[in-house]
């Protein structure tokens, strides 16, 4: 790892002042992404600011919402009693990501900002528009079995790696951001930016801004919910396809659906078209099949990852069936 300076922020104001003061500085919390990418030579911040001492380590729940501090570790969210019972898809999503050790380290804020696992992004000897804008994309003609089929562009087909963000986007989470001028709240659906011609820009976070919390509204479709992850190994592997699904019922009729896909999108992929297909329909194979077709609309598969289209459709159906069965 290259040399850098490590500073410690004790208060939010100090953290924001330090990041503004040092050009190219980065925050470090759990470190599982930052340290990894520094070892790969993908990011080389001259200054790291340790924010573990900031007061964002609590989960707070009331009748309407659950608020999770940005520094809460992934494992602590997953096993939180309120999250397990009222947001089961979020608990399952967190538990399906990484390993026990990594979940004990990685924070919620860091999870939202984790970088793609595209091998060409992680290898500074390869061409990558995300890592070095304008250099090209070696994934296009290279090995791209794990790459995205939705939300991609001619400049980038990298997959967003987070499981939790897929659940959070299905749950209409709001991301709270702090900056020297004050705080702002961004719906997570507006937080991520598809690659387009500028894959290096991944979200709306401004220079010097800090994620302080995510807030999730509660309801029946958030509670009758699941997260299904399909991957090459049973555990400790990134998703080929993942589905976050939640349903609200009136008898046998679906009144509200929440549906998002992981492992297939350039960003965590909410499928509102499929949600609309489900709303008002009787829960069952016909509606689920139609929703699956709608969810994959606009998919652009390439040579190695065409299997993901059918796999994702079947995963959507299975996730919805699971929600009905476990209702």
């Amino acid at each position, binding site marked *: 790892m290259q040399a850098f300076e490590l500073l410690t922020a004790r208060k939010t104001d100090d953290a924001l002042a330090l990041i503004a003061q040092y050009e190219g500085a980065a925050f*470090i919390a759990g470190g599982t992404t930052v340290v990894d990418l520094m070892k790969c030579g993908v990011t080389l911040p001259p200054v790291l600011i340790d924010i573990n001492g900031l007061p964002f380590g609590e989960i707070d729940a009331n009748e309407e919402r659950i608020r999770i501090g940005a520094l809460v570790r992934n494992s602590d969210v997953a096993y939180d009693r309120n999250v397990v019972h009222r947001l089961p898809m979020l608990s399952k999503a967190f538990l399906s990501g990484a390993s026990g050790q990594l979940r004990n380290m990685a924070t919620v804020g860091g999870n939202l900002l984790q970088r793609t696992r595209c091998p060409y992004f992680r290898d500074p000897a390869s061409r990558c528009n995300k890592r070095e804008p304008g250099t090209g994309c070696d994934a296009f003609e290279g090995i791209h079995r794990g790459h995205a089929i939705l939300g991609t562009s001619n400049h980038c087909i990298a997959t967003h790696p987070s499981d939790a963000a897929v659940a959070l986007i299905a749950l209409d989470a709001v991301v709270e951001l702090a900056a020297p001028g004050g705080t702002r709240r961004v719906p997570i659906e507006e937080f991520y930016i598809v690659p387009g011609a500028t894959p290096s820009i991944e979200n709306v976070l401004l220079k010097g801004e800090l994620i302080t919390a995510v807030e999730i509204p509660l309801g029946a479709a958030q509670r009758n919910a699941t997260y299904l992850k399909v991957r090459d190994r049973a555990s400790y592997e990134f998703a080929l396809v993942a589905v976050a699904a939640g349903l609200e019922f009136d008898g046998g009729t679906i009144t509200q659906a929440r549906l998002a896909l992981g492992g297939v999108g350039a960003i965590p992929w909410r499928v509102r078209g499929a949600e609309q297909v489900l709303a008002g329909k009787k829960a069952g194979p016909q509606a689920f099949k139609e929703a699956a077709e709608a969810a994959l609309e606009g998919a652009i598969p390439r040579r190695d990852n065409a299997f993901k289209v059918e796999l994702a459709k079947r995963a959507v159906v299975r996730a919805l069936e699971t929600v009905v069965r476990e209702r």
Partner: protein
Amino acid sequence: MPLVSLKINGLKHKIELEPNVTLLDALRERLGLTGTKKGCDFGQCGACTVLIDGRRVLACLTLAMMHKEAEITTIEGVAVAGRLHSLQTAFIEHDAFQCGFCTPGQIMSALGVVQEGHAKTDDEIREAMSGNICRCGAYTNILAAVREEVTRASV
């Protein structure tokens, strides 16, 4: 170079450290505690698992200087006064290793699994231990050893 105090296995060590030294390199290269192994050095194999304040983490993905106030436990601190921990005994009795390189990480991870208390069944233990790779493929016996400790701890 800043002088940093680290508390490892109950003992305080004062060492000179640059910020870019991982906890793994501090343990192995600076303190001679080579029980913690460097497998991949990228957070993918689990060989470097240690406990920080009782929680299992990967020493290769964390900076030593960020743990000045923490209680760090490595494999060297698991046996007390020459007496093996019951989990270590279980690894021997179940022949839960071949080359032994991943074993310190397996044991530290399993201690974390027992303390977390979420894994009871074989499938849950396999899932909880999935961050520790064994290239010899001793998984069946590792599972048996961990299961024994999980059962003992829940009695």
